[in-house]
């Protein structure tokens, strides 16, 4: 897996830039990852990221938008406002989790 350095953080990533070693993630890195895709994190973002991290630790699978909405109480529409255009992918990227995938 390629190693890259972002703002002083040395991280392992896949071909699309998603973190492959989940333990390398922390709140500070989240800020750096967010800035990579033009986002400035607010407490609203961080609440969603915390849910995604906890949920992944329990289930081994990145939550869908529907599940993230149910788990955080943030309406799906607002997830699109917080992480515009491709929220599922962007949320996973900033949370340091694999993007949601199908079986192929």
């Amino acid at each position: 897996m390629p190693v890259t350095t972002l703002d002083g953080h040395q991280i392992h990533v896949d071909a699309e830039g998603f973190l492959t070693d989940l333990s390398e993630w922390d709140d500070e890195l989240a800020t750096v990852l967010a800035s990579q895709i033009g986002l400035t994190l607010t407490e609203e973002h961080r609440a969603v990221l915390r849910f995604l991290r906890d949920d992944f630790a329990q289930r081994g699978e990145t939550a869908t938008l529907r599940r993230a909405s149910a788990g955080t109480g943030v309406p799906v529409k607002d997830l699109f406002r917080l992480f515009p255009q491709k929220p599922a992918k962007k949320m996973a990227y900033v949370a340091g989790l694999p993007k949601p995938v199908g079986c192929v």
Partner: protein
Amino acid sequence: MTRHVVVLGAGTAGTMLANKLRRKLDDTWVITVVDRDDAHPYQPGFLFVPFGGSTAGLVRSRHAFVHDGVELVLEGVDRVDAAAQEVLLLDGRLLPYDYLVIASGASLRPDQTPGMLGPEWRRSIFDFYTLDGAKALAGALRDFRGGRLVVHITDVPIKCPVAPLEFTFLADDWLRRRGLRTSTTLTYVTPLDGAFTKPLASQRLGSMLSDRDVAVEPDFLVEHIEDRTLVSYDGREVPFDLLVTVPLHMGAEFVTRSGLGDELGFVPVDKHTLQSTADPHIFAVGDAADLPTSKAGSVAHFSVDVLVDNLVELAAGRPMSHSFDGHANCFVESGDGKALLLDFNYETEPLPGTFPAPYVGPMSLLKESRTNHLGKLAFRWVYWNVLLPGRPMPLAPAMSMAGKQTSSTTT
């Protein structure tokens, strides 16, 4: 002393589990299977129905496939009382259990997307995941004279995640044969970031849609449907003349009523033992479980083998020692009498190679072949005659790397 295993659902997973367990537990154990009806569908067969495939033999009596030593109760479930270890049926009967296995599958919920179940349902909006839907779609395709055909996935997880792709390939083939392909635009709409999301599959199969001139609309989460148009949460619109949708999937309603489900009514379980995270006497298997792998008959089959061995250990007072690896094995029809075969688990993405034996196959992994298509057709016989009765299959539950090409062996 009599003890009880109660299985809720006599579909693929529940029937196999009850039959296999009956062979391994002694007569002090009573095994009861509950289902609300006596119609067992062979769901993989629905795929061919919209294109004129026969419906004969696609639905058979559940009774015929449940072992004589297993009691089959035909009644709906009101709820599970986990504290009392009892299942309450809709007719008021109480079934006590020592171990409960929830195998009630996933149901289609078109009611969950505004505008889906409106006046256009089964006029211009169809599904092929139910036999009624597949039959209705066959009629619509017979009358189809070209236009915008849209294949759509509402959200994941869905049963047989490759089925919408298969439908698209078969539709392309069917339209070509009828001389309608040039007058039809085919669009594949998915909430994921592409039709193929795993690295090797994308690399090897990514062109299968563009080669067939199928447009892909990725990252599309439908909010509602109006005026024959899919509208996403971020305001994108996909108009259609004929929509073939895969509605939202949810678990059985009694699961939610019993407080045993997640936000979609699937049962959270340990992904290796299938034990409910809420109650050690409760397990979930097949589509009803929230396993992070495909909702597919092959997963049901392989995980049932693991669960049976673990339940036998628990029944004998020993700890569970078997672990499910997420093994799935899926045929993918690609049209023109060919199919692909996928074999993967929690850790390993679908890889190229041969299956089940190295070099000789006879089936090819992650590649189109006629043999794979014949394998898919032959599987129906295997399903009714070997799998459901719980007879041994020459396939171990754990995925094997034999015959697979890894990055070090792939050129």
